[in-house]
């Protein structure tokens, strides 16, 4: 119970803000509807087969990750590119700083990448005097506002056009503009200059294709294409789990990703990038680097079952459908990955003890598992993690009070005399204190501590003045004629009773 009270201060601002609630609800609702249309039987009859294939491919690649990463590296090098292995964010920052120094460049254009959010790349580069510029419209708005992404696909999902107008007005010192088309044009103009000025383009990667040494980027705006075409250097920063065996497997993954993410059979641009510009090609980068990031992933691999969290292709479908995400929003999750996938990734990356409430923040309705295009068993993973957290507590002896409580409960429930006495006492105390209403109206001395935590999100009617046992006893004591005939009630007005 301690855990739940601990998150309340963060949760309430989101829950109490009707505008924000409406924004989250509408945006995720639209994404849910669009996805539904494109994966329906009529539009994609082999959807379930594709999911199974995607799952099998991911499982195979992750189970043989060492093999596929080596193959990937060999092929990147054969294409004239380089692979940089980084254990953590610091190594990525050091690499990019070196590159910027060598190139004497200050501006880096970036296309959307959750992996670089993980390591706070922008902040670190800024500390060293560089100017990383986010070029995805949503990310650009967030960078101006100094906020982290609200959603893995739609980063500025929580913002209204009026808030965007405020941000542009304040940060760009321009006249107020509230029309999204015009706001987009403003950003386009500013970012176009940056694209043509920057020497280094940094992207993420949706897939790393082992048999081709290629990076695959999926997007709608064209900023990933520009970031990887205009500057002289392209650096893709990718988690090691992004590797897939063959280019042909994209026939499976691409059909699932756009549909699950935004309800598009294919996103506007899919770039398959294999190394720097070649002899005879007119444009494209002169240098091509793929940064392979660990940042905790090798640790997650250790658990043969739960490593399936690494299958995720970041489509966001599980967030959109999740009743918890839709209420508490993206910023209430402690790490960059929010929603159900965040709830299973975060404890595995950051340790079970850091946010033990997270796997509990689920109604276990199972919707996330049903929509996941790579069939990650998210609900089961949540349960496993809950069990792990309890096991860890027990190992540390932190569950003593709980154990005692349950022992007492067991005694109570197996001894009729004790039970009767306790329920009489309980009913007397609660009834007396609660004025016949709901448990949350209890006076402060009862509505405190663990009870308070529990009651903050739920409520219970208080016990009736007489328990069933008592009523039964009274009934037996009355002469038979005065007992109402229940059968009649049941047939005539049973439903309203």
């Amino acid at each position, binding site marked *: 119970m301690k855990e739940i009270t601990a998150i309340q201060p963060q949760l309430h601002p989101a829950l109490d803000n009707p505008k924000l609630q409406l924004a989250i609800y509408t*945006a995720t609702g639209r994404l849910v509807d669009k996805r539904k249309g494109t994966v329906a039987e009529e539009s994609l009859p082999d959807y379930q087969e594709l999911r199974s294939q995607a799952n099998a491919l991911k499982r195979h690649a992750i189970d043989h990750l060492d093999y596929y990463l080596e193959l990937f590296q060999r092929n990147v090098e054969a294409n004239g590119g380089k692979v940089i292995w980084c254990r953590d964010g610091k190594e990525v920052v050091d690499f990019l700083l070196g590159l910027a120094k060598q190139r004497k460049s200050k501006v880096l254009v970036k296309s959307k990448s959750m992996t670089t959010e993980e390591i706070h790349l922008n902040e670190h580069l800024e500390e060293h005097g560089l100017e990383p510029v986010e070029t995805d419209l949503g990310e650009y708005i967030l960078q101006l506002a100094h906020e982290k992404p609200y959603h893995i696909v739609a980063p500025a999902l929580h913002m209204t056009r009026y808030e965007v107008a405020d941000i542009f007005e304040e940060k760009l010192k321009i006249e107020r503009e509230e029309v999204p088309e015009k706001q987009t044009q403003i950003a386009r103009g500013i970012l176009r200059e940056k694209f043509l000025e920057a020497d280094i383009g940094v992207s993420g990667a949706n897939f790393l294709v082992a048999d081709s040494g290629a990076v695959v980027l999926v997007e709608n*705006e064209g900023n990933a294409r520009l970031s990887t075409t205009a500057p002289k250097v392209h650096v893709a920063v990718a988690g090691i789990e992004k590797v897939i065996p063959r280019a042909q497997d994209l026939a499976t993954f691409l059909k699932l990703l756009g549909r699950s993410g935004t309800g598009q059979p294919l996103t506007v641009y899919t770039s398959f990038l294999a190394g720097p*510009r070649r002899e005879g090609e007119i444009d494209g980068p002169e240098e091509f680097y793929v940064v392979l990031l660990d940042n905790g992933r*090798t640790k997650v691999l250790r658990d043969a079952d739960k490593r399936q969290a690494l299958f995720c292709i970041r489509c966001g479908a599980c967030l959109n459908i999740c009743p918890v995400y839709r209420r508490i929003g993206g910023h209430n999750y402690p790490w960059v990955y929010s929603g159900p996938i965040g709830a299973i990734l975060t404890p595995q990356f950051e340790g079970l003890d850091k946010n033990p409430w997270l796997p509990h923040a689920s109604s276990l309705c199972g919707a996330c598992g049903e929509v996941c295009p790579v069939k990650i068993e998210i609900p089961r993973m949540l349960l496993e993690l809950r069990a792990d957290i309890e096991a860890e507590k027990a190992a540390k002896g932190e569950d003593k009070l709980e154990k005692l409580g349950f022992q007492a409960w067991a005694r109570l429930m197996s001894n009729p005399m004790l039970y009767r006495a306790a329920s009489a006492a309980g009913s007397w105390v609660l009834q007396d204190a609660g004025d016949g209403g709901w448990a949350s109206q209890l006076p402060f001395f009862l509505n405190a501590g663990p009870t308070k935590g529990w009651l903050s999100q739920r409520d219970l009617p208080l016990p009736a003045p007489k328990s069933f046992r008592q009523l039964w006893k009274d009934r037996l004591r009355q002469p038979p004629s005065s007992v109402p005939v229940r059968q009649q009630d049941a047939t005539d007005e049973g439903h309203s009773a």
Partner: protein
Amino acid sequence: MSREAMMASIRESLGRTPGQAISAPPEARIRIPDVDEESRVGQFLAALEALNARTFVAPDAASARQYVASLTLGKDALASNAPLLRELGIADLDGVRCGITQLDALREHAARCDLGITSADFALADTGTLVMFSSVEEARLISLLPPVHVAVVPRQKLLSGLDELFALNPEPARRSSSMVLITGPSRTADIEQILVRGVHGPGEIHVVLL
């Protein structure tokens, strides 16, 4: 150094040893539907229209040229070096610049002009997609920097979809450093899920099917 450390850590977690063989991967799933050319054309046009792209089916070279001419009239256009554009006489229309092979000149023109004209290596019928391999014939920036993109595609290049594309090109990296699939005009829905076209790439696409 980090490579060795990461590899060691991966192998330890997976319980694998260096150089250990792998089990066979699941077979690649390629299913090419049997769609005749007429239906492909129908699907392609419908998909493009749903994406708000303009389409024009050209019965002959002259009408293709005429359609493109109507778009370039009074405009600055940049055409790729695709031989088809020369053959059709599109490369020498008024206001159309063609034949650039130097990066600096390309950047300068592509950033300034109103219209980029290209062909495409393939097109995908079911999704309305253009497939472009980067080469001396097709520069990447022409379909990217100008606000309008015009693509002239011969009917024979029309494939049923992704499966056929990857069946014909199992290893796209052998052919080029860059294969790009373009499905409709550049767009965003980042502000309140409102659809806006023409963010960083062209907001307007015309596909001329020969």
